[in-house]
Structure formats: C-alpha cells, structure tokens
C-alpha cells in the first residue's frame, strides 16, 4: 500500500498555460478576418506556413534537447508565435521569408535562450525585425487594399505569388502592388512618412487614397479587429490591463502633444492608434508575459516606454512602423524595469504611523 506524498498546496486552480495560449490564439481571429477582408488570402497563407514551420522546428529542437515533446510542442506558445509573425508579414511576401522568420523565432530567439519562459525577446517581433532588416525588399511588398487594386487576384493567385514570385497569369509582385492610380503600394504609415519628407503637410499627404475615408484604409479595421480581440482577452482575464493601457495612453499623449505643436508634420492621434500594428502590439505583443515586465507598476512603465518609442521611431526613425522595434527595446529594458518596480515586501520598510 502506497501513500501519496506531495507538497502543499494540494489543490489547484484549473487554469493551464496551454489554455491561456489557446485563448490568445482565439482572440487574434477578428483581426485576421479584417486582414483577410482587406488584403486577401496572403496573411492566412503566411500564418499557416509559419505555424507549420514553427511546429517543425520546435519539434526538432525539443527532440534535440530531450524535452517532453508532447506537452511542450502543443502548449500553444509556438503556434501563437507563428500566428503573430504571420499576421505581420506583407501579404505577398515570398514563402521563404516566412519560413526563415519562423525558424529564427523558434530556434534562435526562443529555444536557444532556453525555451518557453526563458526568452528575453518576443520571438515573433524579433523574427519580424530580423526579416525587416535582412530582406527589406521582400518585407515591404505591401498590397493595396482590395478596393484599390488595379489587378484582381484570387486565392490561387496569392498562393502562386507567394511560392513562385508571380501569379498564374504572370503578373509580378510589382504589378500587383500598383494602385489603380499607378502608384506602387506602401502602407499608409510609409506613404505619410515619404510625403512628409518631400515637404508635404499631413493634410496634403492623407489625400492619397490609401488613407481611405478615416485614417488608413483597411488598417483601421484590422486594428479594430485586434482591439476587439484584446478586449475579449482582458474580459477573460488572460492578459493584464496595465501594459496595453499605458502603451495606448502614452502613444496618445505623445502624438497629441506633437499634433498640437505642429499639425502639419504630425497626424492625429487616432491615426497613430489605427494604423500599423498598434493594436496588435498593445494587446498581443506587449502583453506577452515572458518578455515583459511582471509587476503592475513595471507593466505600466513598460507600456509607456513602448508607446514613447513607437512615437519616436515612427517620427524620427528610418522605418515607417515601429511597434516591433519598440517592443524589442522594451524587452531589453524589462529586467531593469522589474528591478526598479519591485513591490515592497509585506512587513518591510513599514512607515511608522
């Protein structure tokens, strides 16, 4: 007869890390749908490609490291990383870019640092940045929103494009990317940045059709999709409110000040919120607990710093969007933030009343 020996506590909340991951994956769906609606099948193809690559490379590394494959492979973290990376890819980027990115994210950024829980950087963002600086051409093959395309393309075309560099009808990426008015597509952020460098004012710049009726055609809805997903996660308690809140607030404050000072050179705050990867970053990247700060105070600082960095890089940096860079910089700062925002232990430094 054997007695069961274990350490207290003997009961446990039923939540699990993998369940948490699944919830986050679920929450990306509205954003992905918006992306699909505006930019076609490209991202969904990239997401699937990234997921497959990520799982394969995770499997490979886990078996090399003699880790329990069954539990760790499907804990959802690799899949989530792959999905986030896939979302960030330009819709018709070549397939190998995504594959390299996913491998980099899993093998170098995650597993080489020790696997889940040990990576100092957000794997998806690190991979995205790596791709961006390595393959700037491929990583800027943005498509115009479907409303603006000059050449209609289908799912098959996109697939063809991603894997062979041209559609089945022989159109090149360059042609696909051309607007109805003949311009090659860039993201609204990129367009704005270019226009401002050429001396145009914001109001002049945003007359371009890529800005649509509101802020950024297509992108605003995608951001809205991720916002909805993020709110869902908040409601479910899967993510902590502090980082997204302070990130958005800080971005808001920075851009508002800039806009008030010089409205010609700085777009409105809502443009900052609703373009680029702002919402994705706020609710899905900055809330990554592994690479972020841990305490509430720390998360507030972390988010605020990220917001400031996004604003600074978008305005003064070389790249149009900045979320990935800001996140990586903040990841680097996270341990430091943690040290300085350590809560006062109960019973220590008690102020004598």
């Amino acid at each position: 007869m054997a007695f069961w020996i274990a350490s207290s506590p003997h009961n446990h909340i039923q939540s699990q890390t993998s369940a948490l991951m699944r919830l986050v994956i679920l929450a990306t769906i509205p954003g992905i749908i918006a992306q699909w609606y505006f930019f076609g099948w490209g991202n969904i193809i990239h997401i699937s490609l990234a997921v497959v690559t990520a799982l394969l490379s995770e499997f490979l590394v886990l078996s090399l490291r003699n880790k329990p494959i069954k539990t760790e492979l499907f804990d959802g973290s690799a899949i989530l990383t792959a999905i986030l990376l896939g979302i960030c890819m330009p819709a018709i980027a070549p397939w190998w870019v995504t594959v390299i990115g996913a491998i980099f994210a899993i093998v170098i950024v995650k597993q080489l640092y020790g696997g889940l829980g040990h990576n100092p950087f957000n794997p998806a963002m690190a991979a995205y940045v790596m791709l961006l600086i390595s393959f700037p051409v491929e990583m800027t093959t943005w498509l115009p929103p479907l409303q603006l395309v000059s050449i209609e393309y289908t799912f098959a075309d996109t697939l063809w494009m991603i894997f062979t560099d041209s559609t089945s009808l022989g159109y090149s990426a360059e042609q696909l990317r051309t607007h109805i008015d003949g311009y090659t597509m860039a993201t609204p952020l990129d367009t704005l940045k270019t226009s401002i460098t050429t001396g145009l004012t914001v109001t002049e710049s945003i007359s371009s059709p890529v800005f649509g009726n509101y802020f950024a055609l297509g992108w605003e809805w995608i951001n809205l999709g991720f916002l909805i997903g993020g709110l869902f996660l908040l409601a479910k308690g899967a993510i902590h409110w502090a980082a997204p809140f302070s990130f958005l607030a800080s971005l808001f404050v920075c851009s508002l000040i800039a806009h008030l000072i010089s409205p010609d050179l700085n777009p409105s705050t809502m443009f900052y919120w609703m373009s680029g990867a702002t919402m994705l970053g706020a609710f899905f990247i900055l809330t990554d607990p592994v690479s972020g700060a841990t305490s509430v105070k720390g998360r507030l600082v972390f988010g605020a710093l990220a917001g400031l960095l996004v604003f600074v890089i978008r305005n003064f940096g070389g790249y149009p969007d900045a979320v990935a860079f800001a996140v990586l910089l903040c990841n680097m700062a996270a341990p430091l933030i943690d040290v300085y925002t350590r809560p006062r232990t109960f019973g220590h430094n008690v102020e004598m009343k």
Partner: protein
Amino acid sequence: MKLNEEYKELAWQGLWKNNPGLVQLLGLCPLLAVTSTVANALGLGLATLLVLVCSNATVSAIRQWVPKEIRIPIFVLIIAAFVTCVQLLMNAYTYGIYQSLGIFLPLIVTNCAIIGRAEAYASKNPIKQASFDGLMMGIGFAAVLVVLGAMREVLGQGTLFDGAHLLLGEWAKTLRIEVLTLDSQFLLAILPPGAFIAMGLLIAVKNAIDDRAAKHQPQVEEQSIERVRVNFES
C-alpha cells in the same frame, strides 16, 4: 623532445583550446566589424598576426630589462609602433584593402589579444617560444576571422573571396566563388547583429565539439592521493 611538446602545446592552445577569438573573446571589435567578407577578414587577420608575432618577439626580447611597473606602457608603445608601421605599409602597398579596413587597422593597437599575449606569455618566456605563441595565437585569431567572414559572406552575398584581389593582387580575382545565387541578400549576415549571431553560433559549435571530445575521452582513473595530516606533533 620536450621543446617539441611545448611547441605542440602552444599550437594547440593558440589554434583551438585557448583561441583568442573563440575562447578568450579578445579583440571582438575588429572581429565583428570587418568580417563581412573573407577578403577583409583575411586582411585584418594577417595584419594582426604580423603585429602579434613582432610584438611578442620584441616583448620577449626585452623582458629582462623591463621593470614591472612600467611594463604595460612599454608593451603598448611597442604594439602601437608595430601597428603604425603595418598601417603605413598597408597604406603604401595594399591601398585597396587599407581603405576597406578603414578604422579597424589602427584599432589593432587596442586589440586585447595582443597585449594579452604580451603580458601573459611573451613577458615570461624566451623569444622563440614567444614568437611561436604569437604566430599560433595570430593564426588562431585570423582563422576565426576568416571562418566568420566566410560564413557571413556566403550567407550575405552568396560569394566567397569577393574582393580578394585588393589584398592579394589581380590574380586573386579568379578566387572569387559564386557559392549561391541569391535573389536577395540576407542582409542580417552582413550587418553587425549578424556578426554577433554568427560569432555566437561559432562559439557554440566549438563548445559542442569540445564537449563531445571530452565525452569520448575515457575517464582516467587517478590514484588516490595521500592525505595530509594536520598533526603538529608527529
């Protein structure tokens, strides 16, 4: 025989076991900055090698006359003198590579590998061994440079020995190998971050090889040693 053993050990130390690039991690700045192509790496490697051998020999030759307190300034003087000479010579005779190595050539002065060897080895050993040590350490360092350069050049440009003619003369143009034809360059490999990552991988590979070697080596059962008794009266 014994001397032979010593040289063997020196070579082993310099080329592998205590490699200045991979193990001591000395001189990282030029190591990471100029290794975007094999030609650059080789140029800097050779320059460093030359300086290392000369400085080791000189330091060893003068070691008896150098008081302990001022040894470092003297080593620095010697190294700086050699580096400047090498720089001038390269400027005069290999202008192309001199231009592409740019600032990193005078930076050899601050390459810790050189002063490190001067302090750790040359200042305590006879000229022959010291020169040999310099040679081996230099070759070890140059080898790491070249390997790193090759890795980055292949990944980044898809070529090998691109621009070698700047260093070795016109004939070397035939050395250029088109390893891969890339549609687009893998820029990360050429950029400094890529150098860090490649360096990390290189170190990891070396450690892995060492580990494997250590595992395959049968454990030598040592004789148990005599215990020393802390006994004051016997």
